[in-house]
Every structure is written in structure tokens, then in C-alpha cells.
């Protein structure tokens, strides 16, 4: 069979790849106004920080019906110590952070719009050091700073969510928003982005960023009950890569981590 026949095959394959590349880059070639029209509608939606805070409050009220706050001075002071470390750095943030601990065995943390972060007591019991909890908290702060929470809600619930804030919080929509946040699913790139922001925060707070990797290592090593902790594991599908990322995170040459002083054994026992 002649080479011309195989050349036809090559033409087909090259043609396919060229058209694929063309369509993949089409938005770059379109006039800007066209590209804007094609952009996904949800990108056009946005919320002010004040609206985010308002929405966060509505969702928190809804969640606190389901979860019981852990009121324990030992835990509170340990969490407050971590917050104090972050305080000078996050004070420039438009968000006002509020950290709460709820009684629940699940190894989880939920971040609400506007800077409210809910830690589950299961996560505190599971962590081997206050630095690991600080790392998880820094990661969640990363989600807030990168606006992942509100963008996720806008993408999944959309314009109705904006209307809910304006009209004072429709119970059904708020419940849907709370369930969406409980599902805790972010994209891989969002998780990586939150990791990077969180690790920067850790370094600034004189906490070694490898604490995040240590937490994931700990997760990987444990023979976890997957049914109970599936959500957390599903959200963090590439723990090994993230351990490597945290270990190779660039730190300044004069960086000296200052250990957190909380007596972690006591904190865990107090839960």
C-alpha cells in the first residue's frame, strides 16, 4: 500500500489536533465583547464582603441547629493561641475571622462565607499537635481569602443566593447553601491554592508549613473508617502530593518556627 494512504491518515490526525487546539483557544481569538458574552454567567455574579458576612451568619444559624458548640476553656485557649498567631497577619484582611469548635467525631472543618470557620472536635482529637490544627485553619483561611467559598455557592446556587441575602435569608436556600458547604468539595486547583495561601500564612505566623504535610501524613497512615471520614478524604484526594508540596514550600533562610505552647495532650483529653 502506498505511503500516500498513510499520509491521508496523518492529515486526519493532524487536522483533528489542530481543530482541537483551535477550539480550545477560541476565547483568546474572539473579540473581547464576544468572549465576555460566552463566559459562564456565574462569573458575572459576585458578593460584597458585607453580603458574604450576612450570608455566613444565616448559614451559621442554620448549622448551629444541627451542631452543638463545644464550650471548653482548655480547647478555647488552645484555639485562641493559634488565632493570636494569625491575628497580626490577617488583620489586614477584609474578613473578620471567627473560629468555633463543635462537638462532632468527624475529622472535618467547615468554612462559611465571610470568615466563620467551624472546627469539628474530631479533627482536634485527631491532630497530633496544635501546629497541625493551625495548618488546617490556615488552609481554611486560604479558602476564604481566595473567595472559594462564595464562588462555590454562587456557582451552585447562583442568583437565588443573591436574592436570598437581599430578602433576609430564605430558609430553604440557606439550608441548601449549608448542605453545599458541608459537602466540602473543592476543585483540586482550589485546594492547591488554599494550601499555598495557608502555608504563606503559617510561615508569617512562625509555624513551619510542613505541619500541613504532617497532618496529611497522619491521615494517610491511619486506618480510618472511610464511611465516617469519606467526605474529608474525598475532598483531599491527593494527600501524598500535598505532603511533598508542604515539605518543599520555600521558607526564608532566617525562618525559625516558634512552637505553640498549648499542652496538646490535655486539649485532646478535655474534648
Amino acid at each position, binding site marked *: 500500500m502506498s505511503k500516500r494512504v498513510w499520509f491521508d491518515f496523518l492529515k*486526519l490526525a493532524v487536522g483533528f489536533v489542530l481543530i482541537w487546539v483551535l*477550539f*480550545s483557544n477560541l476565547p483568546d481569538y474572539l473579540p473581547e465583547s464576544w468572549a465576555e458574552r460566552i463566559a459562564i454567567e456565574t462569573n458575572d455574579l459576585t458578593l460584597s464582603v458585607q453580603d458574604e458576612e450576612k450570608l455566613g451568619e444565616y448559614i451559621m444559624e442554620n448549622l448551629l441547629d444541627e451542631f452543638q458548640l463545644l464550650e471548653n476553656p482548655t480547647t478555647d485557649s488552645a484555639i485562641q493561641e493559634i488565632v493570636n498567631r494569625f491575628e497580626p497577619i490577617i488583620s489586614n484582611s477584609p474578613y473578620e475571622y471567627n473560629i468555633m469548635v463543635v462537638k462532632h467525631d468527624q475529622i472535618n472543618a467547615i468554612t462559611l462565607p465571610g470568615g466563620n470557620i467551624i472546627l469539628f472536635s474530631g479533627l482536634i482529637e485527631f491532630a497530633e499537635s496544635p501546629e497541625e490544627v493551625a495548618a488546617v485553619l490556615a488552609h481554611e483561611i486560604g479558602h476564604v481569602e481566595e473567595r472559594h467559598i462564595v464562588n462555590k455557592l454562587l456557582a451552585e446556587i447562583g442568583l437565588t443566593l443573591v436574592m436570598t441575602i437581599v430578602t433576609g435569608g430564605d430558609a430553604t436556600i440557606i439550608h441548601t447553601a449549608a448542605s453545599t458547604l458541608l459537602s466540602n468539595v473543592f476543585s483540586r486547583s482550589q485546594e492547591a491554592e488554599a494550601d499555598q495561601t495557608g502555608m504563606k500564612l503559617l510561615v508569617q505566623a512562625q509555624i513551619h508549613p510542613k505541619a500541613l504535610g504532617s497532618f496529611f501524613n497522619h491521615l494517610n497512615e491511619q486506618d480510618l473508617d472511610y464511611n465516617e471520614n469519606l467526605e474529608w478524604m474525598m475532598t483531599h484526594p491527593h494527600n501524598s502530593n500535598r505532603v511533598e508540596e508542604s515539605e518543599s514550600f520555600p521558607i526564608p533562610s532566617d525562618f525559625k518556627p516558634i512552637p505553640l505552647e498549648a499542652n496538646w495532650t490535655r486539649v485532646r483529653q478535655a474534648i
Partner: protein
Amino acid sequence: MIENSQSIYYPLPQPNEIPEREREDAMGSYLMMFAAVAVALPLPIINLVAAVAYYMVNRRKSRFIHFHTLQSLLSQIPTTLLNWGLLIWAAQIWFFDHLETTNYFWGYLITVGLANLLYFIFSLLAAYYARKGQMYYFIFFGKFSYHQVFSRTKSFKYEGEGDITIENQPPKM
């Protein structure tokens, strides 16, 4: 290839030599695919299985049928693979990437859609010409199938060929 066609390749059957039944079988190889694709939409493999089955059943009937069934079968392979690629990619986005898509995915989706559309259009054309008893060559697959079916270097036995034993002889004059 064309210049040497008289010596290398078997002569092509002409429309007036091709019985109605053969034309319908040849046309069927393209049309059968439409029904199979409709059934196979969630999992684009059944159409290929159906095409292989149709090819195996009909290929020995005549060179004309053999050519069209082979061309139909071969031309389905790339679209099936592309559709599988799309299915796997979409499943990965759904289950592992939390619905996060890239421009390359959307570009692939559109290109595969176009490839399927072109494949449907050319299959309809091929079915039309097959019904008229004519040859119709797809890019690459047409030439490849022609070579496989009509080349004298390929030994392939068709129904009726070689079944005639010469017993009756003319008288010796």
C-alpha cells in the same frame, strides 16, 4: 497505486453487475451504525461490536459488500475511540475534578462533536452510493479498504467462488 490498478487490483464491479441484494447489504453496513449508536450512546462500544458482527457476517458475500462493510467498520474505530476519550475525560471531571473543566476539554468536546457529525454525514453519503451500486471512498479508510479488498495479493474466498468443479467438458473436436 491507480496507474497499476489493472495488474495489482481486481477489477471493480460496475453498478449494472451488482445485484439488488448486495447493494442493500452494503448500504446496511452504514445505516446499521445509526441504530447501534443510538443504543450505545451511554457507552460507545456497542456500535463497534455491531459493526464487527455485521462485517463478519457479510464480508464473504462479495467484494462490493466486503469493501463497504470494512470501510464502515474501520471508519467507526477513530470516532469510537474519540467518544471513549470524551466519556473517560468527562467521568474524571465529574468524579475527581469536582466539575472543574479546562478550555482543552471544551475544545475536545466540540471537535469530537464535529468529528461525529462529519462521520454521520459521510456515512449517509456512502450508504446512498452503496445503494446505487457505486463505490464511495472516505479519506484514508476508503483507500485502505480498497487495498484490503481488491488487492490481488490478498487471498480471500467469497461465497460461490471456487465451488464450481469443472466436470462438463466440450466434445473433443
